[in-house]
């Protein structure tokens, strides 16, 4: 009987240890189930998906960056051009550095080419919405998030987005009546 008990004990301990391992095995199992069934996949959740993408055409985007000559900043896009479907959510980045030895507040003004594309260029997030303060020697990467409206004329194949940074302090002194530069 004692021998039988020892045998049963061994079996039950193996089961116990196996189930302890099973608890941890549930972790990869859980993620696999979520992946296979397509649930709980964070950013790609089906509810948040954009269904308005016009996949029948591609538009070339070109990015351009300038600074006003009075502003001692270096300013450039991180990518020169991009091909996107209208309706697609796009994020691009620009880099700006203050090469002077004092802090400066600047603000960027966008312009579009051709001009008739401007109304279809829907920016969701842009560094041009607010004034940017850069400390002496500071450099910063800034995002622009936008959607090209699928209603944009079909004969527009290339859109250029061009930003120009202005020194906000200088501007303010020059024309005291205006509070902000136009944006958007």
């Amino acid at each position, binding site marked *: 009987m004692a021998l039988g008990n020892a045998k049963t004990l061994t079996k039950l301990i193996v*089961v116990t240890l196996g*189930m302890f391992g099973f*608890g941890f095995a549930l972790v990869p199992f859980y993620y696999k189930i979520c992946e296979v069934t397509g649930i709980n996949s964070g950013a790609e959740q089906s509810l948040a998906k954009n269904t308005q993408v016009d996949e029948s055409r591609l538009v070339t985007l070109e990015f351009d960056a300038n600074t006003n000559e009075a502003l001692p900043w270096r300013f450039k896009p991180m990518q020169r051009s991009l091909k996107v479907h209208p309706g697609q959510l796009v994020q691009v980045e620009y880099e700006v550095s203050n090469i002077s030895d004092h802090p400066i507040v600047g603000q960027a003004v966008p312009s579009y080419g051709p001009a008739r594309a401007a109304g279809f260029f829907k920016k969701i997030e842009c560094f041009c919405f607010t004034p940017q303060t850069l400390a002496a020697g500071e450099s910063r990467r800034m995002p622009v998030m936008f959607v090209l409206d699928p209603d944009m004329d079909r004969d527009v194949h290339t859109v250029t987005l061009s930003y120009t940074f202005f020194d906000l302090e200088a501007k303010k002194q020059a024309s005291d009546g205006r509070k902000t530069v136009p944006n958007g």
Partner: protein
Amino acid sequence: MSDAAHAHDDHGHGHPTGIMRWLTTTNHKDIGSLYLWFALIMLFAAGSMALLIRAELFQPGLQLTNPDFFNQLTTMHGLIMIFGVIMPAFSGFANWQVPLMLGAPDMAFPRMNNWAFWLLPMAGLMLMASFFLPGGAVAGGWTMYPPLFIQGGISYDLTILAVHIMGLSSIMGSINIITTILNMRAPGITLMKMPLFVWTWLITAYLLIATMPVLAGAVTMLLTDRNFGTHFFNAAGGGDPVMFQHIFWFFAHPEVYILILPAFGIVSQIIPTFARKPLFGYASMVYATASIAILSFIVWAHHMFTVGMPAAAQLFFMFSTMLIAVPTGVKVFNWVATMWKGSMTFETPMLFAIAFVCLFTIGGFSGLVLAIAPVDIQLHDTYYVVAHFHYVLVSGALFAIFAGIYYWLPKWTGHMYSETLGKWHFWLSVIGMNIVFFPMHFLGLAGMPRRIPDYALQFTEFNQIATVGAFIFGFSQLLFLAVILKTIKGGVKATDRVWEGAEGLEWTLPSPAPYHTFETAPVVK
């Protein structure tokens, strides 16, 4: 080894006395009593917390506690009642009764049995001590959900450790019980001749060794998330808090059957005795118990319908949950059929058993209501849920424990308990219990959330009724303590059979049962 064997053979000579007798005992009856006393002490500890909770909820606003302490009370009440009262009490019954019912001399591993018990008071002490640590005891709910449980202070680590220890204790206890049942039955007791209490405990013990290690894994992950920089559940590090709920309820749904199956077993012993008829549908009872145990592994997500699940998953968990009502219904009908045309008498154990059948069924039905996913989304985390699980755990598990104590106490002590006091205890408990928990159904349907120290004015009356009931129910348990102490001290001498209709090996022994029994196995026809 030879010393242990020697001490066993010559009891009364060279036995440690006083505290050392209890610390070193390997006797299944001693250990059974220790489990039951531990459960009783913890019942009063966690019950006092419940009374403090009810006192705070007597009126809206904050009177006695601050919200944080209130949350500590609800959390600790739940943890202690589950791991410190119901589970140890059932282990106590198993230790006393399984060897007696099977004609075995003791449990299979007496030393492991001693260790399994003595781990429990350590874990209990750690839990109680956490009230005095900086920040107080854990306040994140007994379900230990992250992110709260990976954010709290030192007492959270202590509680996780206590859960590890309690889990280890019940795994050792279960291994012992399974081995005893499989290997140490007297000749002639086949599996399908075992008393139903032994059957339910065999299945419970299997559930325990299958799920306790999963809980141990889950709380280990909590511990490493807290202290060792892992990110199982920490969303900031790419983990998923909902995954904890899945792993936790994979353990905790079988756990609720761990808390009720031995109760089914006790009631299945008592009803035939006082109906003076054999149990109706013995084989179907065994198969129903096994089906409940198997189904319990595929229903867990009904605890978390609101986390955001695909409709297909909700439907699966909803229907599989409802399926459990079938074997449970088989059991209820079998108990009723056992009583049908029986020569019934209504001693205290029978009264508690009948109350169990009626009130547990109410709890079962409110469980069915909650199983309906669209309804559950409305009732999730309301007092309806509180009413539901107290009907199955208080008038279910706890009443079965009371019934079992009254039923076997004469065999254990050799004295009859006072039937008058027992009946007082029964009526006060059953009335008090219904006054506490029945109004909670209405509160839940009206939308009162659980785990809150303050509530909107319109809930006041039902809360006041519940609090009055709680104090009746709580203080009538002092009567229970009095009955037990009185019976241990003396009383009418119990006969060997104790109850006219009692069947089974334990009733062939003298009352009180001698310290060593069945040293030569009885022969069962």
